């Protein structure tokens, strides 16, 4: 049985604040378990987004992408995203919007409503831990996640969007 909500938590735990995604994923997993909601949410952790993640959107009602950001608004952005080609000129990784677009093109259907939670990071060096600033932002982002998953619908989530 496919869980109605999928969460993609992206980042490398050994590269400083790039660990924000995996760290939030771990915290969310514990909270969902405690609340008895774990079966309704699939948590997918990866180093980076890529084309196959489009397949993880199949059969979902709602999707959330959690990632660290650099030079993005503090403490975080939370907003709804839509399929787009604009952000695809990156590296071996895809932007969340491009994953939605790959889904639309390969599945021939609209992807589920999707949101991105982008928490601003400060440093991303190999072997570094989370910065103190990122620790503070994580606490705020965790609070938002608990509110979101108390009512996991696109309509409810849209009330929490921050805008850029």
């Amino acid at each position, binding site marked *: 049985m496919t869980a109605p909500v999928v969460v993609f938590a*992206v*980042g*490398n*735990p*050994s*590269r*400083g*604040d*790039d660990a924000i995604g995996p760290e939030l994923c771990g915290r969310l997993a514990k909270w969902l378990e405690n609340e008895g909601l774990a079966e309704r949410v699939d948590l*997918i*952790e*990866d*180093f*980076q*987004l*890529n*084309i*196959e993640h*489009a*397949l993880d959107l199949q059969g979902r009602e709602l999707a959330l992408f959690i*990632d*660290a*950001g*650099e*030079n*993005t608004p503090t403490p975080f952005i939370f907003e709804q995203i839509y399929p787009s*080609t*604009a*952000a*695809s*000129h*990156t*590296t*071996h*990784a*895809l*932007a*969340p919007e*491009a994953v939605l*677009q*790959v889904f639309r*093109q*390969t599945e*021939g259907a609209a992807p589920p409503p999707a949101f*991105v939670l*982008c928490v601003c*990071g400060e440093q*991303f*060096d*190999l*072997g570094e831990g989370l910065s103190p600033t990122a620790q503070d932002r994580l606490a705020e982002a965790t609070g938002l996640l608990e509110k979101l998953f108390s009512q996991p619908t696109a309509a409810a989530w849209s009330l929490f969007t921050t805008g850029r």
Partner: protein
Amino acid sequence: MTYNLETAEHPEKLRRVAIDPVSRVEGHGKVTILLDDQNKVHQVRLHIVEFRGFEKFIQGRPYWEVPVMVQRLCGICPVSHHLAASKALDVIVGAKRLTPAAEKLRRLMHYGQMLQSHALHFFHLCSPDLLFGFDSDITKRNIVGVAAAHPEIAKRGVLLRKFGQEVIRVTAGKRVHGTGAVPGGMNKSLTIAERDELLKDIYHIVSWSRDAVHLIQKVHIQDPGLYNSFGIFRSNFMSIVGHNGDLDFYHGTLRARDDNGKLIFDGVDYQQYDKYIEEEVRPWSYMKFPFFKSLGREHGWYKVGPLARVQNCDQIATPFAEHERKEFVDYAGGSPMHAPLAYHWTRMIEMLHAAEVIKDLLHDDDLLSDDLMVEGERKMEGIGVIEAPRGTLFHHYRVDENDLITMANLIVSTTNNNQAMNEAVRHVARRYLHGREVTEGLLNHIEVAIRAFDPCLSCATHALGKMPLAVELVDPEGQVIHSLSRS
């Protein structure tokens, strides 16, 4: 095999073009081109702008942590580091020969990695250039553009990649941060259900891989003027080769040939690699430049990866891939093909071979065995080598009596190709930029040459907003006079 265009005589009088970072290449690459007032090219360099600190990251850790930890070096090929480290540490725990089950499970994991990596590279990174052309509309020159114009090709690319990831998941235990390989063997075998799930799809995977070879073969043959000459340079080449000279990605001995295909060395035990290969440091690049000691710095550099492997082996042990190898060799006309765009053709031959090997392994009941571990006399030093998707990968460790890593030396595939990539970029710059105004399409030609090698510049960081592409033209006084950017 010279260093033409590596260093200009009077760089202070030249205009600087920087491509920073190179788009659709893992990590932070930067190309700088110095032009004079007539736009003539005087100096071209591919830089690595991130200091990686691999060795420092690993030193001081208990050796048994290393196969898991090194996966965090690279977001694109973590399995390659996982297996190269495990092979090095096999030596340290005295595991001279793994159990049949352990070796086959590792092979399955590795060939799954080759399949997914080659599929991603071809369908996602390169097919936009190949299907639309290097000068095509930038807004379509990406995987989403491919999906719109060729939905079936794009879908197959996604499914091939997904299948390879599933092979990794069932052998490594997890989709990322897997722990399947451990010093001395493996810590899990396959269940019957896992094997049967993969068997359901493998025949499609083989068939689609054959189609992919034929697609790139057709693209290549239709435009020999471009594909046989774009960015071309002659060089030595190296890979490991398996038993009887077979193409082998997991284990074998080192073999090197010169640009005419003549053997330089063969049958070399990779525990002795440092007797044959030396790494040179140059002041303008963080990435070292390896070369064969016997030929020296100027003539001893080489290329690795699919184009080297497919031409270095004597044969491929699976029938469809061997047929395609012969077609490629025939097309090359009996001497080594050096055109960088031929990497794509050989990469797809390798993907087909990986699919065939996976099919054969899935019919082998050893994958279900629990006889997974061996050990022997403890050693203080070990070297592991595999053929990673991008080429030969060396992991070399020393361990103290407290089981802590005291020395680590990694020569990653992209480092092995460092000089070769620089040569390709110089050729393209000379051919396409010389005396012309710089446009986005022309700059993409530079990137096409780099992408042919599938370089992984090792940045597993990918934070949102972190990797725009910026191109700057800078005059001799350092003023930015023109810039292009992508986001």
